[in-house]
């Protein structure tokens, strides 16, 4: 099959169009937090199980206290794999993951807005749990 050079122009146009469209949309949209935009997007009274599931998925890899994970980043004694460990560091969870947005670390995805809303509501409502009834 022989080449049809005229197609190359279309390929460049397509690439330029993709790059241009990315430029146009690369700013985030939205003017409200999730809690204000859609209060029912997360449970109004989150349970301990819902909070723990988020921590298990996003935090226990490093903050598992060695019990559930092979990794033990140096000097970290936080243990979100247990109820007592979670309740003992509510302030840390709020400051680093929910409000501060610096955890999970590195280039790992941060908590989603829904996850933040669940954790912040659960903590604000007293962080009720089996070890903190």
């Amino acid at each position, binding site marked *: *099959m022989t080449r049809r050079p005229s197609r190359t122009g279309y390929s460049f146009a397509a690439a330029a169009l993709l790059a241009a469209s990315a430029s146009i949309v690369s700013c*985030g949209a939205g003017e409200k937090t999730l809690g204000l935009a859609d209060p029912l997007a997360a449970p109004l009274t989150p349970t301990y199980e819902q909070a723990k599931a988020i921590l*298990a998925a996003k935090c226990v*890899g490093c903050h598992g206290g060695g019990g559930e994970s092979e990794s033990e980043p140096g000097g970290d004694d936080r243990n979100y794999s247990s109820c007592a460990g979670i309740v003992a560091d509510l302030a840390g969870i709020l400051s680093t993951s929910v409000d501060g947005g610096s955890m999970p*670390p*590195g*280039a790992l995805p941060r908590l989603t*807005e829904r996850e933040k809303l669940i954790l912040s509501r659960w903590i604000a409502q007293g962080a009720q749990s089996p070890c903190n009834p």
Partner: protein
Amino acid sequence: MQSVTAAGRSGLAGSFRIAAASALVAFFALAFFPGALGATPLYSAREGRTCDNCHLRPNLWKNPPVFDRKCTMSCQSCHVDPAGGGMRTAAGRFFGSATLPMIATNPRPTQDWDSWIGKFLWRKDRATTFTDSLPEGPPDFESSKNPRFAAHDRYALGGPAGGSSRYAPTRGRFGPLNADPLLRVSWDLRLALLVAQGALFFPMQADVAMAVHPVEHVTFLGNVGARGRSTGLSDTVDDPRTPYLREGFLLLHEAPGNAYVKAGRFVPQFGLRIDDHTAQTRRTFEQDGSVPEARVTGVEAGFNPNYPYVNASWFQSTAVTRLPSAFDIFDTDGTHGMAVNLGYRELGWSAGASTLLHRRPPAEGGDATSFALHGVLNPWFYCRSLPLTYQAEYDWGRWERTSGRETFRRAFWQELDWRAGNGVNVLLAQDWADPDTDVKDDHAFRLSAGVQVTPYTGITLDLRGRALFPATGRAGADIFTQIHLWR
């Protein structure tokens, strides 16, 4: 893949240098735009440049009619699953032993001779097995039946009862590899080390796949794997979904125009199926291929002649709030969806569009309607001194929160790859997503730069640095290393 005249290439080289420079400028402009944003499609995009990437140079070959051709830029050229990924066909295995590694165990494409990192020290690529008289494949289907083209292959045995279809890979075209086996076994093991504030070692993937091809046109594929957990090795082993059936389907194939139908468990086709499952185009749009939740049960049909392609699937899935059964592919919640993927894959570029629909109650994930535009450009095809490949994808769509209210999401991904030498790929990638356009400051973009080295068939090392820039909170960076063992 058909040959291209040298004259045509040289005439286009100038304009393509300009285009490549423009793409580079656009890439860096986007990379530093506030809030903006090794992949397997890379090989498809890159390797249309020469026929002997995927098979031996055919002897006295003449192109058959379009619908009789087996060459395609689709994933099914190199993978048993037409959607790509996992077990490779004879063409994929040949590519993995001839073109991909630093040390080739099948004759390397003539274009790539001396194209290795030591070429400045001495000119001849002694690492390859090529000789002055390269072996050549059979010229046609009838000639392939000659006993001298018998396979010697420990990972692919026998052949379908009654013989191979004329639409199956041609015997003898892949050196000692079995072109159309009755039984084929493969594996895929990925171990990762993530260094951020601490070091985290975890298995990303551990798959064993088997394909049985009892008669022409019919193949059963089963791919069983562990659910890789970034929380550690023991969590992976103890996970209730380890092992689970990642893919399991009946495939009806070997038809004109590379048409196929598959039925069973699979990941629906949407956008570019890149191997970085953490890319925001994948995760934001429920295409994270590393998790069981991305699997659906349904039927997909496709058609891939040279060079348009189209495939469509209808499926049922489980609610996002629970994991599907590990092996019962009929364990669904009655939710349904469909995907359509179409476009045009030329030898040096491609452009496509996809749509993915989910229809679910809000508590089970909600309705979602997603669209994608994607394309690749391979300047290397047009200019041999420019071994660059550019890929990009833009996704957008509507989705439903658990409250039942609708909102929109968007994501973008792009990657520029430089084939620095045989077995060495250098990449620069960027991805960006705004998962909810009604919510402020929830978007983030990520930059990645790295190198992928394949010293020998079946071993790939992937090292990359990544930096995440969330709209709020602190930016972060990490180093990701992956050892990928495959066969």
